[in-house]
């Protein structure tokens, strides 16, 4: 059995933990340079505010509707994410962090009598201990678990939990009929449209489709999706891209790694891979989270897991920007004498490359951005032709001395002593 835990409106929820006045009102979080909207509360969604809407287009509408606006506080979001992921380990030994606010839990080596109760305990536990509301979907496969989470998210009567493990086929099929192609894990806009053209309109249609025909038209990936919809687990996390919210690049090490140098090499590689994925989908990202850990399955007490997030002042898809940050983060969290088993990077705050306003408060001039983009294009072309992966680029260094537009940044409640919550007593 698998579960998918998804934080509800994560960035907004993080802000709400430290500012209860934000509850039940429309709230949006912007990209850096306050360019466009990357997160919305349910109330904001109800107002019709769209994802990735540029601020200049809807500023008046937001003001007229008393929508609270925040600049992105990735140090806060990264820290809260780390807490949530740690908390999940109390409910399952196999937590697979998928993005900054999502994780799959592999429940196959656990004895759980009632998955609904288990899910409720998880939701209640995360909310009590951290203040973040989450939704859990539980099913025989990761694909079905993700569908369960999506359904539960839009149905408040489910109280954040949907257990499909002991669901009868007719009931399950009814759920699947309401799930659009594009909401299935791993099916993007293009495939969703292609499926629709071929007469498959929802997850139920896809479940019933002929596997051989699917394999022919949608490769083995498509076949695996169908199998998973039919309750046969066969997909791994690494197979699927979650292009919208975050790009992850993580790997377990084949053998233990102990030196910082070795981890730095691996991290540089993961960053390069992630940035490549970013460029491939014509996006840029604002923040990078690095996490490293030792083996959680060993019973010895030296288990160590840590993560840290850094934020760029502008959205970027330029590998050196992220490599620099990642290595700085590694300096902060690396502890000597530990046997590291896994490392990973997440790029978050993803925006379309063309929606970004890069003018005034940018490290690079327009010309320089063009040069950087062309450099990356060239790099990607070379990598594609020769099949090699770039390990490390000479970096330009990172200068933070210039001003960045962040009009509505909330305090870094969990990472700066000068910015902790002040209670007027």
């Amino acid at each position, binding site marked *: 059995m698998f579960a998918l835990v998804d934080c509800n409106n994560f960035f907004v929820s993080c802000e709400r933990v430290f500012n*209860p*006045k934000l*509850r039940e009102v429309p709230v949006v979080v912007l990209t850096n340079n306050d360019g466009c909207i990357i997160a919305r509360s349910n109330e904001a969604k109800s107002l019709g505010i769209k994802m990735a809407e540029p601020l200049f287009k809807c500023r008046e509408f937001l003001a007229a509707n008393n929508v609270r606006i925040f600049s992105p506080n990735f140090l806060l979001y990264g820290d809260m994410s780390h*807490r949530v992921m*740690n*908390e999940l380990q109390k409910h399952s030994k196999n937590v697979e962090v998928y993005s900054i606010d999502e994780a799959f839990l592999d429940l196959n080596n656990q004895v759980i009598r009632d998955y609904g109760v288990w899910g409720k305990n998880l939701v209640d536990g995360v909310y*009590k*201990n*951290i*203040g973040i509301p989450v939704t859990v979907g539980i099913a025989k496969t990761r694909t079905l678990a993700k569908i369960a989470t999506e359904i539960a998210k839009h149905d408040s009567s489910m109280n954040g939990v949907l257990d499909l493990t002991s669901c009868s086929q007719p009931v399950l099929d009814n759920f699947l009929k309401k799930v659009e192609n594009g909401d299935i894990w791993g099916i993007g806009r293009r495939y969703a449209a292609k499926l629709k053209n071929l007469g498959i309109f929802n997850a139920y249609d896809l479940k019933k489709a002929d596997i051989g025909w699917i394999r022919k038209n949608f490769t083995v990936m498509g076949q695996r999706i169908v199998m998973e919809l039919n309750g046969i687990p066969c997909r791994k996390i690494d197979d699927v891209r979650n292009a919208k919210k975050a790009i992850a690049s993580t790997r377990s090490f084949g053998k233990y790694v102990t030196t910082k140098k070795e981890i730095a090499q691996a991290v540089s590689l993961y960053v390069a891979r992630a940035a490549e994925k970013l460029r491939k989908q014509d996006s840029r990202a604002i923040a990078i989270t690095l996490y490293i850990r030792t083996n959680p399955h060993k019973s010895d007490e030296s288990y160590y897991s840590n993560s840290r997030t850094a934020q760029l002042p502008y959205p970027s898809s330029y590998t050196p920007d992220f490599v620099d940050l990642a290595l700085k983060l590694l300096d902060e969290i690396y502890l000597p004498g530990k046997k590291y088993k896994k490392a990973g990077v997440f790029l978050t705050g993803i925006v379309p490359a063309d929606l970004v306003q890069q003018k005034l408060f940018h490290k690079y001039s327009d010309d320089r951005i063009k040069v950087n983009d062309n450099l990356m294009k060239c790099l990607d072309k070379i990598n594609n032709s020769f099949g090699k992966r770039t390990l490390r680029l000479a970096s330009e260094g990172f200068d933070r001395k210039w001003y960045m537009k962040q009009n509505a940044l909330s305090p870094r*409640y*969990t990472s700066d*002593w000068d910015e*902790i*919550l*002040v*209670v*007027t*007593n």
Partner: protein
Amino acid sequence: MKASVLDGIICSMKKQIVEFYPPLYSSSVSAGFPSPAEDYIDKKLDLNELVVKRPNSTFFVRVAGNSMIKAGIHDGDILCVDRSIEARSDDIVLAILDGEFTVKRLKISKSKISLVPENPDYKIITVNEGNSFEVWGVVTWSLKEFTSGR
């Protein structure tokens, strides 16, 4: 070393002399001989280890105001708050009352919940049906600086 431990060592030494057993080295102090391996050379006093028992659910807040002076909490103090602790009557809690944060002593009786200040200039707040109320976390430690950042 504590007196009881020393006594233990002396007693067992006496025992061994009287009974002619060869001295035994053991890693457990209770057996009489402390092991050199117990001197954790690397270990330093770590405030995090002392104060933050559950990092996931622990947060720090700063107090502005003096409604809890008699509990030793003054304007400018930093409080360590743990969300995972089940709040009990008499705990000092960080609570949210009608959308505002406040630090008060929680009093729970059969009939009501009250937020009690520790300063005669402030009133006791009784939580009514009409209020929205939530315990955000329990205050576990406070940090007070005496040198004003000097």
